[in-house]
C-alpha cells in the first residue's frame, strides 16, 4: 500500500508536466497582448517592446516554458500583471473560500445523495423510490444559476432567513487566519461569527451541491440495488440482522466504490466549476478570481490558477484511488 502510494505520487509528475504545458500553450494562444494590458492602449511601440523584454515574452516559446516551469519548481506561480502581487500569495484566500464552499456542497451532496439513493433502492418501485428519483432528475436538470437566484429570492428576499450573498457580515469585523472561516471561527470560539458564517454558507452550498447530490443519488441507487441482490446480503439477513445493519453495513460498503468515484470527480468539478455560484452569491472564490483575470487578460493568473485547480483535481482523484484500497482488501495495488 505504501509502495503503491509512493509510486502513484511519482506518476503524478508526467501528468503535471502535461497539464502545465497545455495550460501554458492555451493561454499563449489566446489573442491579445499582455504588454498592452499593462501599458494601456496608448503605449508607444518602444514601451511595449520594453515590457515584453522584461516579461521575457520576446523569448522563444520553449524558453518561456522552461522559465515558467523553473519558477513553478521554486514555488513561484508568477506575479499578477494587474496587482503586482505574487499569485501564490494572492490565490490563497480565494482558494480557501472555494474549498470551504465546495466541501460544504459535497457534504450536502454526499449525505443527501447517498441516503436518497439507499432509500430508493431499498424500497425499489415504491412511491419513495419514484419520488426520490424525481428529485434526483430535477437535481441534474435545474441550472445552477437559476437555482441560486430562486434560493436568493425565496430564502433571502421573501423569507429573510438567510443572507443573500457574501461569506460573512463585514460589520462583525472578523478576519480569519487560514481563510477557512468555519474553522477559524470555531477555533477562536466565536460562535456569533460561526453562526453568521454558516448562514452565509448554506444557500450557495445547496445550490452548488444539488447536481452532485442528484448524480450521487442515482449512482448510489443503482449500486445498492445490485449489491442488495448478492448472496452475502441474504446471509446477513439470515443471521437475524436488522435491515438497518444489512443496508448500512453490508450493502453500503460494497456499493460505495462507484459512488466514491463519482464523488471524487464531482468534487474536482466543483472546485473549478463554481464560477456561476460564486458570481451569484458574491463568493470570493478561485473561480471568480480566474474569471476576473480572463476579463483583464491577466495571463499569469489565468495560467497558474488553472494549473492549481488541475493539480487539486488530480490529487483528489489520487486520494479516491487510495481510499478504494482501504475499503476493499481485494484491491491489491502492489500487484497490478
Amino acid at each position, binding site marked *: 500500500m505504501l509502495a503503491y502510494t509512493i509510486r502513484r505520487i511519482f506518476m503524478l509528475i508526467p501528468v503535471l508536466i502535461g497539464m502545465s504545458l497545455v495550460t501554458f500553450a492555451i493561454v499563449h494562444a489566446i489573442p491579445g497582448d499582455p504588454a498592452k494590458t499593462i501599458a494601456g492602449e496608448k503605449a508607444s511601440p518602444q514601451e511595449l517592446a520594453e515590457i515584453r523584454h522584461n516579461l521575457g515574452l520576446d523569448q522563444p516559446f520553449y524558453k518561456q516554458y522552461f522559465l515558467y516551469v523553473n519558477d513553478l519548481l521554486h514555488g513561484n506561480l508568477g506575479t499578477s500583471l494587474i496587482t503586482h502581487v505574487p499569485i501564490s500569495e494572492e490565490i490563497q484566500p480565494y482558494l480557501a473560500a472555494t474549498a470551504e464552499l465546495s466541501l460544504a456542497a459535497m457534504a450536502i451532496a454526499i449525505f443527501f445523495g447517498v441516503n436518497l439513493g439507499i432509500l430508493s433502492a431499498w424500497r425499489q418501485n415504491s412511491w419513495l423510490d419514484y419520488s426520490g428519483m424525481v428529485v434526483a432528475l430535477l437535481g441534474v436538470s435545474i441550472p445552477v444559476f437559476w437555482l441560486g437566484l430562486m434560493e436568493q429570492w425565496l430564502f433571502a428576499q421573501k423569507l429573510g432567513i438567510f443572507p443573500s450573498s457574501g461569506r460573512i457580515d463585514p460589520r462583525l469585523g472578523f478576519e480569519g487566519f487560514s481563510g477557512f472561516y468555519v474553522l477559524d471561527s470555531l477555533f477562536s470560539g466565536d460562535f456569533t461569527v460561526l453562526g453568521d458564517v454558516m448562514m452565509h454558507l448554506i444557500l450557495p452550498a445547496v445550490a452548488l451541491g444539488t447536481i452532485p447530490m442528484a448524480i450521487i443519488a442515482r449512482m448510489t441507487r443503482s449500486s445498492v440495488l445490485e449489491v442488495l441482490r448478492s448472496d452475502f446480503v441474504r446471509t446477513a439477513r*439470515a443471521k437475524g440482522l436488522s435491515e438497518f445493519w444489512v443496508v448500512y453495513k*453490508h450493502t453500503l*460498503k460494497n456499493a460505495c466504490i462507484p459512488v466514491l468515484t463519482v464523488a471524487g470527480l464531482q468534487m474536482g468539478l466543483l472546485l473549478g466549476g463554481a464560477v456561476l455560484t460564486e458570481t451569484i452569491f458574491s463568493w470570493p472564490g478561485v473561480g471568480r478570481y480566474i474569471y476576473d483575470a480572463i476579463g483583464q487578460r491577466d495571463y499569469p493568473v489565468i495560467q497558474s490558477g488553472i494549473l492549481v485547480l488541475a493539480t487539486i483535481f488530480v490529487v483528489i482523484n489520487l486520494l479516491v484511488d487510495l481510499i478504494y484500497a482501504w475499503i476493499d482488501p481485494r484491491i491489491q495495488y502492489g500487484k497490478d
Partner: protein
Amino acid sequence: MAQPVLEIKHLKLHFFTDKGVVRAVDGLDLTVQKGEIVGLVGESGCGKSVTSLAIMGLVPKPPGKIVDGSIIFAGQDLTKLNNKQMRQLRGKEIAMIFQEPMTSLNPLFTIGNQLIEAIRTHEKISKKAARERALDILKKVGIAREGVLDEYPHQLSGGMRQRVMIAMAMVLRPRLLIADEPTTALDVTIQAQILDLMKSLNEEFGTSVLLITHDLGVVAEMCDRIIVMYEGQVAEEADQRRLFKNPAHPYTQGLLKSIPKLDEQKKRLYAIPGQVPSPFNLPAGCRFAPRCEFAMEICRKEEPEIVKVDEKHFSRCFLNQKEAIDHGAHERS
C-alpha cells in the same frame, strides 16, 4: 412422539407476478423431528429453495405471499410473527447455509467480524468473549488457525468458506439448520468433508437439519428421511431405506433411474422424458402426468391426494391409491 422441531402444514406460497401467479409451493406438508436430518429433493424450480426461504421469513414480499397454511417452529406459527420476532429467531434458533460459499460471505469484512456479528446480534456479550466463542466454533468445524479471524473471505478456499458459513450458522446452536445445496459448488472430496462435518455437528449438538439438494447421492449418505418435491408439492416421502429400495412414485423412480451406475453398460443415461411444466401453466390433474410413463386416464383429470403406501411411506400417485386401500390406510392425517 415428541413435538417436532418444524412442522409445515399445507403451506401455499405464491408469487404474484405481472405474467401471472406462480404457485411455487402449493400445499406442502413437512415435519422435521428433533435431531433428524431430512432431505428435501427435487429438480431446480420445484419449490425447495422457496420453502427454505419461507421458513426463514426471507421470501421477498411482494411478489411472494403465503396464501395458506402454517409453519410451526417450536410451537410458534412463523407465518404469524412480525419482522422483529422473526429476526430474533433467524440466526439464533433457525440458521441457514447456502449453495455458494464463494459469495455468501461479505468480501469487505473479516471472517472474525462476520462471525462475531452473528454472535453479538443475538447475545449481549463482550467482543472478547464473542471472539473466543468464534475461535471455539472454528475449531469444531476444523479450522484451527487463529489468524483466520483476521482474514478476508477471498483469502480462503471454497471449502474453508463453507466451513466458516457452517461455523457461523452453528455458533449459537440453533435448533434447526437449513442447508440449501451446501455442497453443490464444491469439489467432490471437499463435499464429503463438509457432509461429514454437518453430520457430526448434528450428532454433537442435536441440531435438526433440513438438507435441500438435487443430489440423491448426498441424500443417501446423510438423511434419515427424504421428501421428494415436484412442482411445489410433495410427490413422495419415506425414510431413506424405503425410498431407495422401493420408490412408490414414478417421479422418484425416474430420479433414481437417472443416477449413472458404474456397472451398467448402457450407452445413454436415462432421463425423465419431457420438461418441468411452466409454472404459469400447470397441467390439469396430476402435475407429473405429462412426463409419466404410467399415466392413466384419471391422471390427466384429477389431482391425486397423497396416500400412505407403507409404514412412514407416502406417495402422491393414483397407482398407489389401490395399494393404499389394500393396506387399509387412508389419506395421511
